Every structure is written in structure tokens, then in C-alpha cells.
């Protein structure tokens, strides 16, 4: 597909009357297709990845892409061909904002075909783990809230083994159960409650596994 065709597809997708999450995901898949055809490996991360896995109360027009195998200059050439401008460090087109926060992707991803385009997105357990780590290490209560939102949204679809492995590596596993309990409790959730949880479990570490 030519860059002009992709540009038209992007216009149609973003200006369509589809719901926000669907437009965002489709636009991202078109962007990724253009980057992929130029030899890059892009992956959706951050808030837009959350919106893909569990569209929530807080929508985003910020598309964070980890792009491997090419330079920012080459990314720039593709995005400008798609109609983006770059007034500062990031690329913009109307209400869309594209950021490339990294060039290294170690986490597992999923590929999803949407219309004719492939979206690569970081796996849902990674997104959830990152939010819990952000709460544990930087006390970001909004991240605890997002983690609870994801826990409820995923329900039984959550694959706990890779999630717990990830959290264990980061020393944040002790927060998973308290956040899950609160998410399922039906009790009011506010800043004060999340601060209490952070303080209570901050120094708690899960027991070390016995060595063979």
C-alpha cells in the first residue's frame, strides 16, 4: 500500500464516526503499517495501549510508539509523509499526538489485525504490571487506580503467571492482591485510601522461594 493510500486511510479512520477507541486503534495500526513498510518495528505502549486493552473513563489522543530498527530521522520522514508536523519533539496532526519514547522493546506483544492493518501492542499483563510498579516505586495513585480498572476489566482473562513474574522481578508483587481486593470490594476509592495501601505494603516483600 502506498504512503498516499495510507494517508487517505488515516484521514478516513480519524474522521469517521466510529467510537474513540476504535478510531485510535485503527489510526495507530495505519501508522504502524507505514513505519513497518519502511523497515521499522513499532509497538503501541502507554496510555493508548491501555485504551486498546480496556477503553476507560479517560480517553487519550496521545500515541506512544516504541520504534525499533530505524532512527528518529527515518521515523520523521514517514510521519511527515502521512501529514504530521513536528513543532517540537513530538509529531502532531490535528488532535493526534505521536511520541516515540524508546527504541528498545523487551516485553511481549500481541499482533491484531484491524480492517486491513496489523496493530502491534504491548501485552495486557505488561501494561498492568507497569501501572503497579509505577504505584509502588513513585507512589502514583492514578496508576493504582488504572491498575484496579484493568484488573476488573480483564477479569478471568488475566494471565496471572506472567503478571506475577513481571511484578516479582520489579519487587512489586505485594501490591497485586490488595489492589485486586479493593477493586472488587465495591468500596469508595480515593487518594487517601490508595495512600493507606501504599504505606501498608511498601516494605512488605513476598517470601523468597526456597532454593533447591
Amino acid at each position, binding site marked *: 500500500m502506498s504512503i498516499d493510500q495510507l494517508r487517505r486511510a488515516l484521514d478516513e479512520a480519524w474522521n469517521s464516526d466510529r467510537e474513540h477507541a*476504535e478510531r485510535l486503534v485503527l489510526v495507530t495500526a495505519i501508522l504502524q503499517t507505514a513505519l513497518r513498510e519502511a523497515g521499522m518495528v513499532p509497538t503501541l505502549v502507554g496510555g493508548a495501549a491501555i485504551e486498546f486493552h480496556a477503553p476507560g473513563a479517560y480517553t487519550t489522543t496521545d500515541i506512544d510508539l516504541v520504534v525499533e530498527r530505524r532512527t528518529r530521522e527515518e521515523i520523521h520522514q514517514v510521519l511527515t509523509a502521512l501529514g504530521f508536523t513536528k513543532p517540537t519533539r*513530538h509529531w*502532531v496532526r490535528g488532535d493526534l*499526538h505521536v511520541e516515540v519514547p524508546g527504541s*528498545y522493546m523487551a516485553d511481549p506483544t500481541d499482533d491484531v*489485525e484491524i480492517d486491513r492493518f496489523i496493530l502491534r501492542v504491548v501485552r495486557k499483563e505488561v501494561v498492568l504490571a507497569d501501572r503497579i510498579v509505577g504505584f509502588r516505586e513513585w507512589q502514583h495513585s*492514578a496508576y493504582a487506580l488504572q491498575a484496579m480498572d484493568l484488573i476488573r476489566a480483564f477479569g478471568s482473562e488475566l494471565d496471572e503467571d506472567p503478571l506475577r513474574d513481571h511484578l516479582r522481578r520489579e519487587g512489586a508483587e505485594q501490591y497485586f492482591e490488595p489492589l485486586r481486593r479493593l477493586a472488587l470490594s465495591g468500596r469508595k476509592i480515593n*487518594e487517601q485510601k490508595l495512600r493507606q495501601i501504599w504505606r501498608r505494603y511498601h516494605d512488605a516483600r513476598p517470601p523468597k522461594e526456597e532454593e533447591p
Partner: protein
Amino acid sequence: MSGANDNLVLLREMWARRRANAAPLRAVVDPTGMTRPARHPDEHAFLAERKGLGPFVEVDDPTYRIWRTGKYGTAAEVKEKWARGELGPEHDPWNEPDLTGTEETPL
């Protein structure tokens, strides 16, 4: 129906299911005062202009951004390296030079 459209139908079903699952939580949340990592000033300005900043308070800490690069270990390790001076502002991705599309790197 094409395979691609089948995927879109499945995606819509997944979103509807997950929204329904999360709805009881969203009904009991008061986000007042909750914090999140700071956005880059350019992104902040872009969103502020469009009234898209959302309800959360932004807190700036370069160690978060350094950890997110995935290059320097776990979050705790990044913070320890920062405290020992092994990591510094020069490792903050916001401080990396960006010459893209400038006169230094002409298109």
C-alpha cells in the same frame, strides 16, 4: 464477512465486556488529588490547549522516565543508581538531543 472484520467484531465484543466488568469500579472512584508521572512540557501544552489533560496531578521525577527506557534495570535499581550518581540527568530521555528535521539533519 472478511477475517479482518471478524477481528473488529471480536474487538468490539472484548471492549464491551471489559467496560461492563470495570463499570462498578468506575462508579466509586474519586480521582481528586491522584498523581501520575509528568508529561513532557510539549505534550502538556498540546493537551492543555485542547482541554485534554484529565483529572490527575502530574509529578516530575526523571527516574521514572529513565526506568521506562528499559535500559537500566528494575525500577528499584534505577533509583539506587540515581542515588549513587551512576545515573543522572544525562540519562533522562527528555534531555537527549533531538535534531530530527532541523538544519543539522536536513531532510
